[in-house]
Every structure is written in structure tokens, then in C-alpha cells.
């Protein structure tokens, strides 16, 4: 759907993007991750044609991206605003029309989306009368009003209460199911794990990782496994021999435990299960993958340390 190739951009002497390439596939939710100041917003602005890249190209739906494609895109910036003295409806009409909707079309879309997001009662309210959360909701609706093929959301969950965060997430999942493509920039790693299919990580204006969420997690796994069982902790420890190392334990009550174990030597997950069977009642066993937060820290932290050492 979107192919970013060798994009570089500098502001005077400050490099904001250095030879960044990435690919967002049709019908996926793509996470754009990175610490503050990494260059995410600049990349998003380049994709939205707000900022012109110094070099590199962008292809949208197979074609070299031009102004024409903007009507098929929706963009919710991180620092978003509304005209305070306009009514919610007038605002939606204005932004919808700017995105290419006809006069009639925009009204139909407003009716649909206002109903869907339960903001019909606010139609005639002026933006300055809305709370921050309400305004955020209006901004989201204005972004998706023209039902774009490709949606770019910069920190879409900030400012929302948990119920609305869930609502937005469900909406994004439904959009994906309907074939829309979504690019998401967020610091909320839990959301990335929950809804993103693939992600790229940008740090110091360079892309340092890209892949599916499970690929990113797998690349950083450290051979940690977890077993949940019912029975005696002593029996469990006795069953293990020197080939395994207990990392930590979690007591669940009613003689149930979760133990995290690291393999030693060439021992495998199967070997672990073999020694445990018959000793305790295994309820579940799984490979512990790092969370996206771990992946993020793991990728970014060493680079920060390296820079400090330099």
C-alpha cells in the first residue's frame, strides 16, 4: 500500500531522517515506533506531503505518490487542534470537504459517523464547549470521515480514557477487517502488541528494525520458558536437574505457581516438559517472548549507551 524508499530529510544542518525505507502492506496495522525526537513525526509529515523530503521516493498503491492521493488518506497528527469557535458539525463539514467529499456526501458521512461514535448531541456545540476527551473524539471522527483507504494516526490514544481507548482500538480492528490500511505511531507498546501486525522502529533518524510483531519479539527472545502447575514447589525443583535454571516464581495460591526457567546447555523445551511430567500437574507451559516494551528498550537502550560512551 505504501512504500517508503530511501527517504532523507534535514532541517538546515540537523538530520531528521536518514535513508529510511519501509513498507506498509495493504490491510494491515503498522506500528511506527521510536523514542521522542527519533524522526517519526517528520516521516509521517513527509508521507502526508506536509514536508518535502530531500531525497527518496514514496509510492502509494503502486503509484508514485502525488497530491491526488491525499484524498485517500486520513491523518490525525499528534498535536492536533480544532477551531475553537466553530461548531462540531461545521468543523466536520469543513475538514470533510477539504478531503474531497461533496456537499451532500459529507452530510451523509457525518450522520453515519456521529451516530457510530455517539456524538450526535454535540453537533451544534462549539468546540470550546467540549472537554479534551470529547474534542479528541471529534478529531478522530473528522480524520476517518471520508473513509480513507490509508489512515495515519500519530499517538491516537493519548488523552482518551480506557473506555474510549478500547473503542478506538475496536474501530481500528474493524477498519482493518474492512481492508483499510493503518499506520500508527505510538508509545503505548501494549496497544502495539494488541493490534499491530507489523512495526518499524526508528531511532536517531534511522530505521533500526522492521518486521511482524512476533518476528520482532522472536529476534529478541532469550530462551525463557514458563510453566504453570499445581503441586509442590519442592517436588518441582527436585525434578529439575542442572540443565535448567529457575529465573523467578509467582505464587498464585491454592498450591499453584508460575515458574520462569532458562535452559542450560542444549536442553530444549521438550526436555523440560519430560522431566516435569509426573512430578507436578502441568496446567500450561509456554515460551516467554519479550514484550514490545522490552523489544523497544532492548533496541533503543544500547544505542543510547553507545552514544553516551562516545
Amino acid at each position, binding site marked *: 500500500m505504501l512504500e517508503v524508499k530511501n527517504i532523507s530529510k534535514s532541517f538546515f544542518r540537523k538530520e531528521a531522517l536518514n535513508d529510511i525505507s519501509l513498507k506498509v502492506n495493504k490491510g494491515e496495522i503498522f506500528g511506527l515506533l521510536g523514542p521522542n525526537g527519533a524522526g517519526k513525526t517528520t516521516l509521517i509529515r513527509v508521507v502526508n506531503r*506536509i*514536508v518535502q523530503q530531500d531525497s527518496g521516493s514514496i509510492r502509494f498503491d503502486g503509484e508514485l505518490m502525488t497530491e491526488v492521493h491525499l484524498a485517500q488518506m486520513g*491523518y490525525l497528527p499528534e*498535536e*492536533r*487542534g480544532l*477551531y475553537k*469557535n466553530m461548531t462540531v458539525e461545521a468543523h466536520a463539514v*469543513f475538514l470533510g470537504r*477539504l478531503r474531497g467529499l461533496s456537499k451532500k456526501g459529507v452530510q451523509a458521512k457525518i450522520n453515519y459517523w456521529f451516530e457510530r461514535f455517539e456524538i450526535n448531541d454535540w453537533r451544534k456545540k462549539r468546540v470550546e464547549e467540549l472537554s479534551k476527551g470529547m474534542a479528541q473524539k471529534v478529531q478522530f471522527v473528522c480524520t476517518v470521515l471520508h473513509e480513507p483507504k490509508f489512515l495515519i494516526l500519530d499517538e491516537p490514544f493519548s488523552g482518551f480514557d480506557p473506555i474510549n481507548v478500547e473503542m478506538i482500538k475496536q474501530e481500528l480492528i474493524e477498519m482493518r477487517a474492512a481492508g483499510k490500511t493503518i499506520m500508527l505511531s505510538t508509545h503505548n507498546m501494549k496497544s502495539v502488541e494488541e493490534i499491530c501486525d507489523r512495526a518499524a522502529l526508528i531511532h536517531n533518524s534511522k530505521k533500526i528494525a522492521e518486521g511482524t510483531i512476533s518476528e520482532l519479539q522472536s529476534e529478541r527472545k532469550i530462551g525463557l520458558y514458563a510453566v504453570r502447575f499445581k503441586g509442590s514447589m519442592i517436588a518441582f525443583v527436585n525434578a529439575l536437574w542442572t540443565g535448567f535454571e529457575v529465573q523467578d516464581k509467582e505464587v498464585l495460591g491454592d498450591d499453584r505457581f508460575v515458574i520462569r526457567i532458562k535452559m542450560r546447555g542444549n536442553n530444549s523445551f521438550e526436555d523440560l516438559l519430560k522431566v516435569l511430567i509426573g512430578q507436578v500437574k502441568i496446567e500450561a507451559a509456554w515460551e516467554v517472548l519479550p514484550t514490545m516494551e522490552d523489544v523497544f528498550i532492548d533496541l533503543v537502550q544500547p544505542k543510547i549507551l553507545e552514544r553516551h560512551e562516545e
Partner: protein
Amino acid sequence: MKNSMLIAIREWKERMGSRSFVLFSVLGPLIILGLIYLMFAFGGKSKQHWNVLVADPTGIMGNKIMASEDRSISYAFADGYIEMEEFANAKKYQPYDALLEVNEKVLSNKMGFVFFREKPSVRMQTRVQYHFERRLEEVMINEFTSLSLSDFRKIKQPLSVYFRDVYDPNNQSSDLSGWVGFFYGTIIFTFIFLFGMTIMRSVSREKSNRIVEVLLASASPNQLMIGKIIGVGFSALAQFLIWIVMIGLGLYFMRENLFPDILNAANLNVYDLALQAGDHSYQETMFTSREYNQFVELIYNRVQFVNMTAFFILFFITGYIFYGALFAAVGATMGSESDGQQFILPLIFLLCFALYGGYYVLNYPDSPMADVLHYLPFTSPVVVMVKLAQGYYVQGHVYEIYLTLLLLIISAFAMLGIASRLYKNGILQFGHRVRLKHIFKWLQNPN
């Protein structure tokens, strides 16, 4: 273009709905009408007596001028030519405050000169001009036509009376028409600045509330800037039309109710005048109304109104685009809305400079400096109005007005180009301190 129009319509609606727009639409014309009323109702209360010598070598006036009842001006007539220097220095002419020169061509070239010792008040100038013009009308009707006075007035050419200092005749003093031009120029600049400031505030507000990034995802910075200039411009034009209508209605109301119109043929009743001649208060009313009518006539008939309105609109629009782009660029380069404070002083300085330019040309229309101010896009809208009203362009300088207009259009486009670069580069910079270094870099950067 569609995006620019959508942005323009939004701007227009916002301006039209704002309280300040409504307030300015009502208060502006009321203040101007109030000033006009005060000027003509009470402007003549301070008395000053003038002795005017009419030099009429060919006897056109017939030793007569229609002012026998005027207590503030006494006319005397001289048959021969009087050299200006002679009038200035000869002892026998010292009792006279001014010399009204009626040359033999006055009936064809419609020009008269008044040489004064001390600059007369506007009111006094109006009186002399009024008396002179009315007398000439009588002469012309008697000599050339069989028309009635009222019919003749419909077809007559306006008379230009130039007031010059007898001790400094080359420094041509402003005539009333020039002031009308200055008034027009001032209106242009008042509107340009008020609405220019509106553009600047609007841009910086969009920056500070971050809506600009949402807009930029759908429209280019150029479309955004042009839409804003157009939208605010149309609201300025709308406000201007409201002003015109309100002032026009106000003048009409004043003419109908506050000042009886003796220029109107229906009201011109010699018998009545004679009957009322002894009544001073009535005379005073008549006079104010005469002056008032002279003012109305000045605005509606004497000044080349069609020409002037056409050029007024042209210079209003191009001047507005020139300054509008400048203000948009300033708004876009500002780091925060409060940055506007530091720009107000230089902008007010620019306003004063433009208005002073107009005033300077009003007083020294032929000076080399006036030529510079005439072509300078910062001052040309007001200077052209002054010169246009002074009748400068009919004296073989017609091409100059087009040249000035062309220069202003080119400057407006150049300013749009410069503003566009600043706008593109500055619009997404938030919370910074404006530095000249940045502005130069933005200007060099086309992206």
C-alpha cells in the same frame, strides 16, 4: 483552487460571525458620519474675516460675486493684471488677504488660482471656491446657454481652484480634492492594516492551536495562505461595502433632514433667500448646508468618481494582496501568538510611513520624493489616491498610474512568492524565537 475556496469560505464565515466585525461595521461609519456632521455643523463657528481681491482683467465676473450677504469675506475687484510679486509686496495690496485670479481662459480650462498670504481654513477655501464657482455658472449660462441653472448644473464641468501661498507659489498647497484622495488612501490603509492584522492573528492562532497540521495534510501551504488572504479580503470588502452603504445613507439622511439643500433647484428660491437675508441664524444654516453640499458635490461630482472608484478598487485589492501576503508571512514565522507584540511596532511604523507618504504628496505633489513614494508599493495605494483626486493624471501623466499599478501587481506577486516560502518553512515551527537568521534561511529554501 477548490481547497483555497473552502478555506476562504471558512475564514469569511468566521469573520462575518465575529462580534468585532459587527461592532466595526456599525461604529466605523457612525464615527465618520459624526465627524462629518461636526465638521460641517460646527466647523464654521470660529470667525475669520477675509479680504479677497479679484483680479479680473477681462471682466468676466462683471465686478460681481454672489456673496453680498457673507459677513466673513469681502471682495474687491481689480481690472488689470496683477503680478503675484506685486500683490505680495506692494503696499496698496496689503489690506487684502488673498488674490483670486480670474484668467481669460477660465471658462474653457475651468481653473482658478487663489494666492493667499496666510493659509486659509478649509472652510474659508470652500467659501471662496463656492462663491467663485456659483458666479461663473451664472456667467456661463448668460453667455453660452439658454438652460436653466439646474439643467446647466447637470452638464457642467467642475471647476478646480488651486490655493497657493503667495510667498511660496511653487509649493502648491493641497486643494480639497487632494484631501478626498488622502481620505480614500487612509481608508485603504485602515482596511488593509486591520484585516492584515486579522490574517496575521489568524495564522498564528492556527499555529498555536495546531489545527494547521490537519489542514496541511489536505491543502498545500500556498492554498492555505491564498485561501486565508481571499477569505479575509472578502470580509474586508464586505465590511467596506457596509461602510459605504451606511455612510451613503447617513449623508443622504443628513442632507434631507439636518441640512436643507439649497443646491437642489427645487429649494433654490431667490425670493426666500431675500426674505431670510436679514436672519443671521438662517444664513448660517444656509452656509453650513452650502458647504455641506459642496462637500457632497465634491465627493460625488467633482472628484472623478468613476475613475477614482475603479482605481480605488484596483489599488485596494492589489495593495491588500501585497500587504496581506506580508502579514501572512509574519504570522507564519511567529513562534507563538504573543510574538505578535514585537511585530506591532514595526507594522505601525509602516502604516505611519504610508500615511505620511500620502500626506507628503498632498503637500508636495511635484517633488522628487513624491515620485519615489508614488512607485513604492508600500505607499503607492495612498499616494495614487491623493494624486488621482488632485487631478494629476489628466495632466499628461496617465501612463504613470498604470505603471504604478503594474509595479504594485508585480510587487504583490513577488510578496506572495516570498511569503509563500516563509509560510511553508515557518508554519510548522512552533515555540521558537524568531531570528533573522532563520528567516533568511527559509527564504533560501524553496521546500
